[in-house]
């Protein structure tokens, strides 16, 4: 299994980081881990998915998302996902500024399944955009009005080359 995707996991428990890393490596992902909530900007350019523990002490998970996004430039396409054991928090991912949530924190099998699903979702969306996107042209107003399914990520899904929204 070659590189299925690159992941950065941010969590305060080293045990969890180690276990998650070995489990996801088994799946073929390239995994980086850190306990630091800040200072990760340089990693963001090279990963496809960032998994952030919501209940990191000291910093509320939501603000981490914000600061990460600020640190990200146009070049980065990384998606930010919450990691929590609280289903209610998971349901709020969009409001907190995340692209999605992984639940059942601590269950490595569930994590593997969810991470795989996240990457499938990324590729499905890419396929949809490829099939839908007109080769060029001014953005049509009705597209901007239609609410996208999923998280309200206005700048998230914009492919770097096209102009205008979905």
């Amino acid at each position, binding site marked *: 299994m070659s590189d299925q995707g690159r992941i950065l996991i941010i969590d305060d428990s*080293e*045990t969890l980081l*180690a276990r998650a890393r*070995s489990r996801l*490596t*088994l799946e073929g992902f390239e995994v980086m881990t850190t306990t630091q909530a800040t200072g990760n900007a340089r990693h963001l350019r090279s990963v496809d998915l960032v998994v952030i523990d919501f209940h990191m002490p000291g910093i509320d998970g939501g603000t981490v998302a914000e600061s990460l996004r600020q640190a990200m430039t146009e070049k980065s396409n990384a998606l930010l*996902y919450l990691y929590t054991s609280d*289903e209610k928090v*998971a*349901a709020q*991912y*969009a409001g907190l500024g995340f692209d*999605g*949530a*992984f*639940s059942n924190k601590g269950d490595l*099998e*569930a994590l593997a*399944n*969810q991470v*795989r*699903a*996240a990457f*499938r*979702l990324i*590729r*499905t*969306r890419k*396929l*949809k955009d490829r*099939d839908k996107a007109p080769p060029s042209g001014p953005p049509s107003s009705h597209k901007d009005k239609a609410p996208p*399914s*999923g998280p309200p990520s206005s700048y998230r899904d914009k492919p770097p080359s096209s102009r205008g929204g979905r």
Partner: protein
Amino acid sequence: MAKRGAAPFVSIGTKLALLIAALVSVFGVVLYRELVDREWDSLVRAKMTAASMVADLFGRSLVVPLDFGDSTTLQKNVADLGQNPDVTYAGIWSVGAKAPLAELHPASVHPDLSGAGSATAVVEDAVVARRVVLDPTGKRLGVARIHFSLAPERTAFDASKRHIFVLSVVLAAGVAALLIGVTRRLIVTPLERLAAATRKVEEGGTARVSVSSNDELGRLGEAFNRMAAAIVDRERRLQELFDHMRQAIVVFGPDGIVERSASRRADDLFETGALEGTAIRDVLYAGQPDHSVEVRAFEEWREVVFTSPASSFDELADLAPSELTLERPSRDPGRVVLLLEFRPIARDGVVNRVMLLATDVTEARDLKHLVEAERLEHARRISSMRLLLAGGAHQFQSFAERAAKRLGECLDLVRSPSRALDSSAREEIFKVVHTMRGEARTFELSSVEASAMNVEEILAKLGHDAAPAEAQRAKLAAAIEGALAAVRSATDDFVEASPIGRAILDQVTVLRSDVATLLAMTEGRDDEIAKAVAKFAARPFGELAVRQTTALPALAEKAGKEVRVDVQGKDVPIPAEVASVLSGVLTHLCRNAVAHGIEPPIEREERGKPKAGRILLSCTPGPSSPLVAVEDDGAGLDTQRIRAQAEALGIAASGGGANELVFLPGLSTAGSASDLAGRGMGLAAVADDLARIDWKISVSSEPSKGTRFTLEHR
């Protein structure tokens, strides 16, 4: 399905009934007319017969009066006729007279008959009878004419007509009813039954048509019954097939609703009750909220699949979930892993259904994971150990010793009930474990680190309890034992990765020069110190062998051969003076083995040997001195050539084998001096070197099987 035209459905029964009705009507009309005509004819004929008779009688009665010209009698006869209500006119004429001699009802209309003789005929509404009156001699006396009214016949006829009409209608109706009934029974009802049965089979039920007639319809009915039975049988067999498949098969449409679950397995596996009509998203991800990433990924995939052309399905299949884990608290191990495969069902190039095949791979998956995880873990441990060996063998050893010792002390503390496990004691344990954790981290010993963290977590959970309970002490003890086991396991890995085996644990760093000095100082002595120094100076066999393990495979490759080197007895100590000689001897013997012993890979394959030749360097501790052997699984010594060469050199073989001849100087079975084996001095020199340290060398060999050189102290 073929489209029937815009024509509305008209039952064949109706059509036949209409046809019968039409035909029978025509028949009825024809019958009526016939009967009516006949009735009139017979009435008229009867009248004419009666009229004839009356006219004949009347005529005869006129012979005498006409002969005598008796007009009074004539008139009386005519008046008598008037009593007959049917007579509408009567007239008598004498021969040649224009005006009648007697007349009844002269005012009425009374056209004459054509012709001249006696006749009776129908003229318009009356029967007219004319009689020529003749005397006995045949002389014409006169003519009489009577008109009989047909009015009564008419009346009778009208009544008859009505009767005939009713009769005809009744008859026709009867015939029609009979015909309709018969055709209904023979044709229409069987067809209806057949149609009804066909519909039942179409809807998935089973039907039998009762066959009573022995004609085409009867045959059709029988054929239908056979066909229906065959359909039912085939469906049953298909269902059995599906039910016996290990895979669950579920079919869903663009709306995401399950249409059919085609196997019993499906209900078993998914445990959601009746699958038909359920949303596929609920079947697969029951209980997961809509925002869950797995549900989102699946639903978006589903949308794309049904709106893309069938030809791109294969590309899209990669984006479908390939595996699914379902919680099954009732089962052991509490979950079920399913392998998912999606297949398109397309029509006209568009996917209009998707079929899901799910296979239960729980057991296989668990096993695979287990094996894979262990393998990875092991490989990682060994590689980190190699790093250790390259750099910090010493530090690791001291760390391991220290950690084991301190953990042992902690364990004693926790285990002895007499000693209180108060907060200061727990602090101590924490410090030990925390330090160990940090040190383990520097060696990249993640399992030791993890075991240390485990102990720390348990200590943290104990919180500020002054005296923890028995159960908690037991838990803590178990955790510390776990840490000890981790340290032991790390040490085992260390030994496994070491080229000199366990000996590495006893290693100490001492300069060779210092050892050499010590040796020289104690030479010739036999006391404790000398023995101790001799032990220092001894090298583990593995150290000597390691040079061969690293260099030989490369050398072999240059000679076009494949070779593998195994070492046994890595940690057996070899005395210093032997070690220096043995090193060279091993090199020589190994190079010989590669040059002459091991065959090229193709040859080895032909002989049924593995492509790579095996060279085994083994060392076993002996009563006073170790025993060393160098073995290969090559072609063995070429005894014939050895003998031949020996003879050429003028040396006769001793009673023993030709094998000992190889140690004679001048002998070499190498055709040319390859850089590996050199010229014929090889083994003789080896024997000499060994003899100088009082060791001997012997050889045993089996053609095609291999050669074994044994080196030992004399």
